[in-house]
């Protein structure tokens, strides 16, 4: 089934490959430099993660003599990155499941039913995006301590759910609004309950919107640092960004840099993968939010 996201634009039918023009040469030089500033550091992290520490100190920019895949074994076991990686996967997937189910239900009701306070609630949720997250670190820490949720994943999952709701609801509401009413009406005439209409008719239609919301939340939570920093107590619960940050801040020149680069590669790789696959959808999601909003 072909569905469009809220703001897909008609794409020109024929995309011709442009040829390099002489008048664009300065532009290409400039852009190539900026592109290099993105691509080279990334490549550098990956190949540095395959060097020995001695090689790294001798020349930080040279390629490895032989590729030390064992760095990953070390990072995985001694550096605890195995644990961080698994923690990150568990936290991210659990959060995504929670965020998507709660936001979908809420956005569906706000988008498809008319009732008193509807617009107010939408504005209330959206307002959550307008304040810097750092303001919430202390009171959230206190609240979770008070409720006995501080220190492990329970608190982190609740926090991720709560702080992802504004953005996710904001993205999904306009999306649900664009879905056609005919199938919904037909289902109602056939005697479907509200839940059947939602589960069997609207939810399947909403899949592209959920995918967009899911990608944004995946990136946001996989990379999240601030809340994890103040909520997770012990290193056993750390997610990858916390593990990398700790290693990076902790060690001055004395110890194991290559392990840190292996950890850094582990953080970046899934992001790169998701980005490569869903890049276009990501751009469309941003566009939809901005142009509608």
């Amino acid at each position, binding site marked *: 089934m072909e569905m469009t996201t809220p703001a897909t*634009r008609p794409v020109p039918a024929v995309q*011709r490959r*442009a040829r390099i023009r002489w008048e664009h040469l300065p*532009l290409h030089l400039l*852009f190539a430099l*900026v*592109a290099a500033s993105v691509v*080279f*550091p990334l490549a*550098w992290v990956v190949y540095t993660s395959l060097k020995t520490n001695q090689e790294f100190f001798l*020349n*930080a*920019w040279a390629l490895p003599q032989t590729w030390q895949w064992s760095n990953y074994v070390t990072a995985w076991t001694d550096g605890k990155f195995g644990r961080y990686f698994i923690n990150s996967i568990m936290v991210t997937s659990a959060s995504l499941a929670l965020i998507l189910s*709660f*936001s979908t*239900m*809420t956005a*569906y*009701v706000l988008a*498809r*039913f008319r009732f008193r306070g509807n617009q107010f609630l939408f504005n209330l949720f959206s307002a959550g995006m*307008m*304040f810097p997250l*750092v*303001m*919430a*670190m*202390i*009171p*959230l*820490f*206190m*609240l979770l301590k008070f409720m006995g949720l501080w220190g492990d994943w329970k608190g982190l999952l609740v926090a991720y759910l*709560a702080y992802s*709701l*504004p953005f996710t*609801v904001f993205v999904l509401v306009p999306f649900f609004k664009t879905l056609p009413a005919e199938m*919904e*009406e037909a289902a*109602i005439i056939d005697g479907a309950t*509200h839940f059947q209409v*939602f589960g069997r008719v609207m939810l399947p239609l909403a899949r592209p919107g959920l995918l967009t919301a899911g990608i944004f939340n995946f990136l946001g939570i*996989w*990379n999240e*640092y*601030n809340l994890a920093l103040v909520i997770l107590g012990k290193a056993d619960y750390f997610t990858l*960004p916390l593990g*990398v*940050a700790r290693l*990076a*801040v902790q060690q001055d020149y004395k110890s194991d840099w290559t392990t*840190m680069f292996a950890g850094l590669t582990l*953080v*970046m790789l899934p*992001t790169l993968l998701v*980005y490569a696959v869903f890049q276009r959808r*990501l*751009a469309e999601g*941003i566009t939809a939010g*901005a142009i509608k909003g």
Partner: protein
Amino acid sequence: MYRRDQWKIIVPFLIPSLLIYVVFVLVPYFVGFMISFTRWTGTSLRMRWLGLYNYTVLVQDPHVWTALKNNLVFAFVGGALMLLLGMLVGNALSDSRLAGRHFYRTVFFFPHAMSVIAIAVLWMFIYNPQWGIFNGFLRLTGLGALAKPWLGETAYALPAVVVTHVWAHFGFYMVLFIAGIQQIPASLIEAATIDGASGRQVFRHIKLPLILEITKTALVFVIISGLNMFALVQVMTAGGPAHATETLGTYLYQKAFRENNFGYGSTVAALLFVVTLTISLSLQRFLKREVIEY
């Protein structure tokens, strides 16, 4: 559509999210204000009421004002750079005659999707005084005299982190502006070009007025992200050297979670709240101008 029994779905679908949102997002902002009137070490739930004491300290604390100034530099200087770059690069990449524009777009946007921690660590190495690529690049181009420990000197640390922030996020604004420019009917631009308008004139007189709405949205985004600066600074410089890169975020973290002074940390957060509110409200008034339709 309206059905009489619609509450049967509205209530169970809405109330749980609303409850979680209110308890964990809205209530903390109020709790934060309460904590700012107390002394609290964060270890037990015992707090001592101090009234306005923390606020009198705040007003005289020079680091707070440095931090606020730095936040405003991130929001307005960094923000202006991001918008400008996003707009110019976005405009250049909207031109279908430019070879490789999809490649550039993909690459420039990527850092925005990356972990802030990864970005911070990456740029610590780029700025490294001994073997960082940045100094290496300067030496290579004959500007070796300018090489310095960028993150280690009070005069250069803040601009260096601002550059990283801009590098990381201008791609996001580029994507926004590309979308905006592509929404402009091609006939408008063609007509102007036929009438002899140069690329610069088309940008200034046709594209710019029509992407005004997006620019407003983008402005709000850059300001919020400037006020929210934390992880990047925390990892790259921890607010140093000598508070030169301190932001309200890193300072309140330092006070609360390192020095166990959660009351004072919350006072810093309260200042951030007031600043955010003031800026948002004045932006709203300032930006309320007619929308240009096409």
